């Protein structure tokens, strides 16, 4: 990784090389990258090489001149550096006047006039780059990197708890429905039954109690979980990172919902549940099983 990407017009190559030499010489020792025969060999995709060089450098140094303002390549490099959030340093090497588009692109860049004293400009540049003039930007970027790290963990925890709670709730509801179906032909029939009919009402009350616990969980814990999830997600979005794992969790959640549905309505599973209920002594289940065998 180099410190500086130097964007220059080919007509200003000697000046650009001079700036590079001054920056790289001790004690400044600022490492520089500029597109030339040494950095881009025949057969290379030079556009990718340049883009990669801009991405990997810490700052972009724009050698401003009449030639570079007219250069399409320089324009592209400068725009790319801006879009990649690279701090831009500008060294003016002639007495050209900024055109409109460069006035726009360089509005946040300090323009140093090197037409008089190259050495002083190189010194100022090196100090700025080395001492972290853009420390605030680096600090903010570190903060975003931290957000990304700490956004993912709370988000994952919140999503896991919610998904698990939903899965358990659905399994529990399936359990309750199985219990009702094992003991009656319909919900209205079940409502009229009591323990005198051989129905284990205590067990049913216990199942209802658990359902109540689930409802209470979603009411009291659901909202804080949602807030945690949303805040963490916003942090990750701010860090330009979406959690692809949430897509996997959603798929897992959907699969877990679909699987019990098939089980619930499959004939084979219904018969197995009925036989199990009959073994446990549920009178309606025994009656129903006897009726089914008689019909067969």
């Amino acid at each position: 990784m180099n410190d500086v990407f130097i964007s220059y017009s080919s007509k200003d190559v000697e000046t650009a090389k001079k700036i590079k030499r001054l920056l790289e010489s001790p004690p400044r020792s600022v490492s520089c990258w500029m597109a030339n025969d040494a950095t881009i060999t025949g057969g290379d995709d030079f556009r990718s090489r340049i883009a990669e060089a801009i991405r990997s450098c810490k700052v972009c140094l724009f050698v401003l001149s009449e030639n570079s303002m007219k250069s399409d390549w320089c324009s592209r490099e400068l725009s790319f550096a801006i879009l990649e959030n690279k701090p831009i340093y500008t060294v003016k090497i002639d007495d050209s006047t900024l055109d409109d588009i460069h006035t726009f692109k360089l509005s946040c860049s300090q323009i140093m006039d090197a037409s008089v004293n190259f050495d002083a400009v190189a010194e100022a540049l090196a100090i700025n780059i080395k001492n972290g003039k853009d420390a605030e930007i680096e600090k903010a970027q570190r903060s975003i990197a931290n957000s990304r790290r700490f956004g993912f963990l709370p988000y994952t925890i919140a999503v896991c708890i919610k998904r698990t709670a939903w899965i358990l709730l659905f399994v529990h509801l399936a359990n309750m429905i199985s219990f009702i179906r094992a003991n009656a032909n319909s919900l209205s029939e079940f409502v009229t039954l009591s323990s005198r009919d051989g129905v284990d009402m205590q067990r049913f009350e216990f199942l209802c109690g658990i359902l109540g616990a689930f409802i209470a969980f979603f009411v009291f814990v659901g909202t804080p979980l949602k807030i945690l999830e949303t805040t963490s997600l916003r942090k990750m979005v701010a860090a330009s990172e979406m959690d692809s794992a949430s897509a996997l969790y959603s798929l897992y959640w959907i699969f877990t919902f679909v699987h019990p549905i098939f089980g619930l309505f499959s004939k084979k599973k219904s018969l197995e549940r009925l036989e199990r209920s009959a073994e446990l002594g549920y009178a309606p289940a025994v009656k129903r099983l006897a009726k089914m065998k008689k019909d067969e």
Partner: protein
Amino acid sequence: MIFYISYANSDYLMAQKLNRELRLLGAATAFVDRGDGEMLVDPMVDIMQSISSCDHFIFLHSESANTAMLSQIELTYAKNRKKPITVVKMGSGKISTPIKFEVGDARVIGKNSIENVAKEIVKIMGVVE
């Protein structure tokens, strides 16, 4: 009155929504659609011309906007062109020093919902009576 919406790449969806809401309220906007940052063409000329032609500059602030070079360039350029500025805070993050310096005493709208933000903007500007 034409509004220009400045946004960081990661706030693209919010910016797009704000643009839509403003248009639904009858406001004209100059919105440079950069997608989520992957652009095939250089947007700089469009951005520059849009800011130059706008009557009001809306800056969507977020943690990403604090460090986005393009957002800062847009803001500085708008300031240099003496465009009135409104800052919409997308989250609870602090506004960085360079941006604070540029926005000065510009109006700051805290994020409520995008719909309410759009309504507040047009109400302030008197676009919709």
